[in-house]
């Protein structure tokens, strides 16, 4: 008698605490952080945003901030002849692509940091061989100066030439999550599967912010 009562009590407690824990976790989901310096002007907080840009994608289409108006997007920096981290990044970005394929308000943007070699034609071939649609995943090329500048000052990603490196460039393998207000909301290591898992979850969290 006593025996079964104790067991019942313990079980009840376990169920109760599990419920308590799960409800806590639900409430705790804070909005994603906003990266970069912020300034307060009057009553408004001004956040770091991605500067205006103008590049050309694999279809020779001009890609600017307007392409990403009212869109969430994931950005990265790579080059097609890279043998080091880029293929891993592209393997991982392909996972992101697969997961957002049917979501009209999420896009991908890959910048070539070797734009002289990575011509429109080469990027077109690359995207086609990867089997992705150009209205979903833009591969862009442009002036080297512009790309390096936007990498470093807007996306806080390293991108530069370095003849000492095996492929001639150093660049970060970061994936940047950008919200509909051009603000950086997440930074992930595009060479790590677990980090990209987090990105997949956080894209959905960011979408929820706009669903309200």
């Amino acid at each position, binding site marked *: 008698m*006593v*025996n079964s009562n*104790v*067991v019942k009590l*313990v079980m009840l407690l376990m169920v109760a605490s599990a419920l308590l824990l799960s409800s806590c976790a639900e409430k705790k989901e804070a909005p994603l952080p906003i990266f970069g310096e912020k300034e307060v002007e009057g009553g408004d907080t001004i956040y770091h945003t991605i500067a205006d840009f103008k590049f050309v994608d694999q279809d020779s289409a001009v890609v600017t901030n307007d392409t990403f108006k009212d869109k969430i997007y994931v950005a990265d920096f790579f080059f*097609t*002849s890279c*043998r*080091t*981290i*880029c*293929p*891993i990044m*592209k*393997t991982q970005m*392909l996972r992101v692509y697969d997961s957002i394929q049917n979501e009209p308000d999420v896009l991908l943007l890959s910048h070539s940091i070797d734009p002289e*070699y990575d011509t429109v034609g080469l990027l077109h*071939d*690359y995207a*086609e*061989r*990867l*089997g992705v649609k150009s209205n979903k995943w833009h591969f862009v090329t442009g002036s080297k100066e512009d790309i390096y500048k936007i990498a470093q000052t807007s996306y806080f990603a390293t991108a530069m030439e370095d003849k000492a490196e095996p492929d001639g460039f150093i660049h970060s393998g970061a994936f940047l999550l950008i919200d509909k207000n051009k603000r950086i909301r997440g930074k992930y290591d595009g060479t790590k599967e677990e980090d990209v898992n987090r990105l997949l979850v956080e894209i959905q969290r960011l979408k929820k912010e706009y669903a309200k």
Partner: protein
Amino acid sequence: MRSKLNAESAKMKVKYIPVAFGFLLFAFGFQHCLNKKSDSNISPASSVKQQQYYVHGEQLYIKHCSNCHQKNGTGLGLLYPPLAKSDYVDKNFESVICLMRYGVEGELIVNGKNFNKAMPGISSLSNLEIAEIATYVYNTWGHQRDSIELKDVSRILGNCKQTPITK
């Protein structure tokens, strides 16, 4: 007195639940490890030298090849051809040996699909390292070629016709 004893034993039982649970988890984990299948097809009867080639070959493969061809050898889209299930790998042993050092460019048909992205050669690989990578590739993912001799690989490398491709 008796009921107190019962209560004690009930407490003890409750205490053991997490312990038993832990053991169960451990047992599952252990079994999972045991069940973990290796992709290696190298025959256990092969020589110690061959087994060493295989182990080194795997490390070299991960360092030099897996970024593009993937750890599981599946390749990526039509960019990087697969090595795991690949008629090209099966039929072109000598070309595979040569392209590791000299690279390859132009059209390459693998499993009926057209690949056309230049692969730069890795000129830093020694004959032995190429033999080791070949031992790994040709004895993994369903391939089973077993013994790959350094002297054969060196002979093949001496007869490669390609000029090195750097980009």
